[in-house]
């Protein structure tokens, strides 16, 4: 018998004994459809959801900008480039990221067709697209397909996210629904909810940003 069979047999034997009394938390079927009513409240309208995202993102120390058009984005990104003196950026192919690369006119590492870790490590910023923004939590949802792989959103010291207004979803249940619709049975290797720059509180419970990943995170909504 393989170890797998042994463990599964032990599980089946164990489960043959029913739980003695139906104490708390042991009542029949779960009710996941009601989740929306228990988790923190988010409004129905897109304005309310945008306001919720803005507020939650600010609490997570995400710099958030709602921009009206490409010109504004260009202005914003070039100002950021000057302010932080970017010399090289990492990014991936995509409608928004290609536009950003064009605006910035900097040496650019594109991760799409592979890269060397040290090359990405020396980039001043990682610019990615995303799958969704979650109003309820202020999180950015990325996958290894939508955001240029696993490392681009976490290795450079500044993570800049470019998103479209239509990508804002109300809450976590909606985000999971969206993932299922989008990827179905062809799942990417990694799916990540990013809620702010990398952080730690391991030293005297004091918040420090930039533990391992980005020290800064910026979200631009078009």
């Amino acid at each position, binding site marked *: 018998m393989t170890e797998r069979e*042994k463990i599964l047999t032990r599980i089946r034997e*164990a489960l043959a004994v029913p*739980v003695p009394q139906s104490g708390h938390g042991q009542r029949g079927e779960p009710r996941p459809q009601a989740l929306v009513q228990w988790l923190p409240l988010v409004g129905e309208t897109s304005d309310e959801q945008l306001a919720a995202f803005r507020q939650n993102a600010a609490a997570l120390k995400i710099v958030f900008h709602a921009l009206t058009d490409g010109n504004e984005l260009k202005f914003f990104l070039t100002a950021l480039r000057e302010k932080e003196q970017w010399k090289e950026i990492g990014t991936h192919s995509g409608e928004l990221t290609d536009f950003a690369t064009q605006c910035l006119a900097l040496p650019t590492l594109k991760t799409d067709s592979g890269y060397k870790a040290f090359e990405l*490590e020396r980039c001043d910023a990682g610019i990615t697209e995303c799958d969704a923004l979650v109003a309820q939590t202020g999180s950015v949802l990325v996958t290894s397909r939508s955001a240029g792989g696993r490392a681009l959103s976490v290795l450079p010291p500044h993570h800049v996210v470019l998103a479209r207004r239509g990508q804002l979803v109300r809450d976590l249940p909606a985000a999971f629904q969206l993932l299922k619709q989008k990827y179905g049975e062809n799942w990417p290797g990694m799916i990540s909810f990013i809620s702010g720059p990398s952080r730690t509180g*391991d030293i005297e*419970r004091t918040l420090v940003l*930039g533990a*391992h*990943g980005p020290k800064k995170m910026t979200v631009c909504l078009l």
Partner: protein
Amino acid sequence: MKSPLQQFQQQAEIVSQDRRHREIIQTALEKYAVVRDQTRAAFQDYGAAREAAAEIKTEALAQLDRHLEQFVSRLESRGAKVHWAGNGQQAREIILGIVREKKARSMIKSKTMTSEEIHLNEALEHEGVEVVESDLGEFIVQLRKETPYHIVFPAMHLTRGEIKDLFHRELAANSSDHPEELTMVARRVLRQKYLAADIGLTGANFAIAETGMISITENEGNARLTAAMPKTMITLLGIEKILPRLEDLALFLPMLATNGTGQLLTGYNTLFGGPRQPGECDGPEEFHVLLLDNGRTEILADAEQRDSLRCIRCGACLNVCPIFRNVGGHTYGTAYSGPVGSVITPHLRGLQSWKHLSYASSLCGACSEICPVKIDLAHHLLQNRRNAAAQKPSLAWKIAFKIFTCVFNHPALYRRLAPLGRVGQKLYPLVKGTRCDPAYAWTKTREAPAIAPQTFREFWRTRK
């Protein structure tokens, strides 16, 4: 070699009188309690969410075999390699096998309590592999050659000054004691380790049966990097981590964060479904998932305590436990400390050697009340006591209860013996506080109440 009981008693005695320790722990946990309660209050109905969390975990366990098979087949369909280990030794051998096959010299780890459970680091170091913990708290305790103090806050017992000295000594770093500067020292050191590591090893917070993915909750981004940089990735997890559906995470990610750290969501909540997929640009070439039993099926077989497998290791029960707060995490001598550790360790490592943990409780029930998946921890501690006594009754207790039963069943005998207490009390100061004192454990720090000058019967007679 000290027994676990002796070790616990000695350590508890020392730590509970250490005022500095108490101050550090109380300050940290008070901060935690404030944010936890704020975040709970943001839920529309936290009670219903908690009830649902318990039900979903119960459902996951009720069909654990089917869920595990589903989890494994989905995961394998994307090219992951799944291993099964019945106990810690098998798990260590499987991991060492991968290390040898890859001729790996270095491993970077993100936080996993399961690897503490199976003492993985020692085995790897014995093999000559450089193992580096990447979670900041874990990195700090690893440099101190200590085990994690707490399952969520591994270095909560240390001050910034101690960490500064540690970094100076071990890393030759000349930084101030400011947490930000100290964190940057660790960041610089660990970045290089990431770029050089042959293997990345992670734990998992949840395993999704429906889609065959593992879910990791973290704040630092270290698990993200562990799963991105090295060529080989290993994930070690207990078989009880299963959740049936992907959307269950919409509940469990906030529940874990709220109770673990007080955040609504932690910085990174990431699902990994395989190695680098076709068309993707990075990620490990090989992804090994190791499912560990190591006593978990034994807990499952104990129908009364089966619910303790619902545990999501948030650490909330540790944080509210008056015993944990006074004796500290290291005193337990186990990978899992606090109330949940006291409940499950006897199952994982033997009831008779670890039953004392079930007495390290005031039975206040704070743990049962806080648990986000409604594990009835306080009652399980009582059940462990009962089971331990039934399995191996103590002769002294047996004799004591025989005498007690006899005296209380015979009124005449009781009448004769009751006044003896007064005589006994006069003689008692002769032995009080010495090793001959039968009530030493109680009286070394307390006064025994005086026995009344009359028994009730004597009083009643005079009143008439």
